[in-house]
């Protein structure tokens, strides 16, 4: 049974159809990369799966372990084992890194999670999650928090954005740790070297999946059109 299955999902905002008959299936422990140009709906897909406010399918089903979760609120989905690492993690004034990493389990040792993302615990645990942290630091801490949650499905929305090139290996390590812990990962990325570590990949275009398969094949297909920004409808007429 798939861990996550989206069946013929439609999502419309005002007169604009963002998804039209979108379907995807992710198995337990599978790392599935989602590729697509800016504006193609990758982050919107993440919010729909997570159940963020105002992000509910117009029609179609989102199934988790075979059960529909369309009607569940964000925290109810989180408690089922779904979580999301945001593309731009928020600042949280007055909340320490230690507090943030132990939201699920106050007794947990948060040091290990920081080490997994290349941050020295002695320098970060007592710092606040506020403007004193750079975007890259917050990004790493967000990824550490996802590991700490021990999810069954982690949605990583461009985990490599805002992180310097030399640290891409840290992002890959995070994905490998999640996989080793048995989590499935939906990996939204623009970087081919990140997508390559996935077990499978799909490309979104015009509100649909236009190509699925091995990451190399999908990346090659994606690059062939040289799109920069989504035109709002599929450029793959024959797909």
């Amino acid at each position: 049974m798939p861990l996550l299955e989206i069946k013929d999902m439609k999502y419309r905002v005002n007169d604009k159809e963002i998804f039209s008959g979108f379907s995807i299936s992710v198995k337990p422990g599978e790392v599935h990369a989602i590729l697509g140009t800016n504006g193609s709906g990758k982050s919107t897909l993440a919010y729909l799966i997570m159940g963020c406010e105002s992000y509910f399918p117009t029609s179609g089903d989102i199934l988790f372990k075979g059960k529909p979760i369309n009607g569940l609120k964000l925290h109810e989905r989180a408690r089922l084992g779904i979580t999301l690492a945001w593309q731009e993690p928020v600042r949280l004034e007055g909340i320490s890194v230690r507090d943030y990493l132990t939201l699920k389990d106050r007794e947990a040792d948060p040091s290990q999670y920081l080490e997994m993302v290349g941050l020295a615990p002695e320098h970060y645990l007592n710092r606040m999650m506020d403007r004193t942290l750079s975007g890259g630091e917050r990004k790493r801490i967000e990824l550490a928090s996802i590991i700490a949650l021990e999810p069954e499905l982690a949605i990583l929305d461009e985990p490599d954005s805002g992180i310097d090139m030399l640290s891409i290996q840290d992002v890959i390590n995070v994905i490998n740790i999640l996989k080793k812990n048995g989590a499935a990962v939906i990996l939204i990325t623009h970087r081919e070297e990140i997508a390559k570590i996935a077990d499978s990949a799909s490309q979104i275009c015009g509100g649909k999946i236009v190509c699925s398969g091995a990451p190399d094949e999908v990346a090659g297909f994606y690059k062939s059109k040289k799109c920069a920004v989504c035109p709002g409808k599929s450029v793959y007429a024959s797909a």
Partner: protein
Amino acid sequence: MHQLEELMRSFGESGGDRSILTNENIAHLVAGGNRILSMRAVEGLEVKAKETPKGISAKVRVTAAIKNPVHLCFGIIHKKGIQEIKMDIVFEAGASANFIAHCIFPKAEKVRHIMDASVRIGENAQMGYSETHYHGPFGGIEVIPKAHVIVGKNGRFSADFSLLTGRVGKLWIDYAVEVGENAVSELTTRIFGHGDDMINIKEKIVLAGENSKGLIKARVAIEDQAQAEVTGITEGNAKGARGHVDCLEIVKDNAVARAIPIVNVSHALAKVTHEAAIGSVDKRQLETLMAHGLSPEEAVDVIVRGILR
């Protein structure tokens, strides 16, 4: 129960360290209503306090660097009463001390507490002042803290007012600080209002000396029908003066908040900035915490507590 014992019990329950009464190395002044219940000075600290018809009057002189914090505990343990505290504090040049004040009114149903402080901080002197209030659950209290502070050359003054547990009642804070050459002043208030609490904060920093610096920081959360108004005034009147007003108010339920940042600059080489944000809890912050499994109520609580920390 003896008034001192009862006040100190509430002092301990609100986070105070009761051993300050017996530790000979720690200065303290404890007043219940208009009674001075306990007092100790240490070397470098002179305190002359007397009882007045409605409270106490104290003259404090700091002449050296005081190692341990000076503890103040004021309050009324009865349901009704009035307490007027008049403080005249002088820091001689080079002196330094941190004051920790606890203001405790655990049963207040009809209580009025007025603080009127005059503070003069000499050259190279430093004063830290932290004031924590506990007003009990009834909201029947009116608190009016007023202070006028002058900070001399290279001096430093920081004040932190917090009222996070129990009801606020009616609160009118009125602080004014004049900051001299190369001197620094920071005013921080953190308040959580409920019920029909009324919060009015007026803080003013006048950057009078060259290269003086000032920060006004207000963090207020209100719920139910509470109301809050925060006025942060900063004047930049000298070369190199730098000031900032930072006000954040979180509003829940039918509460109403207002922020009034006032910035006056009268010297071309002075700079004063301000930022004010009022509204409900940030949606993205809320969703981030909910994605970690917290319910909306738990997430709001974490965010509000963080802001007031």
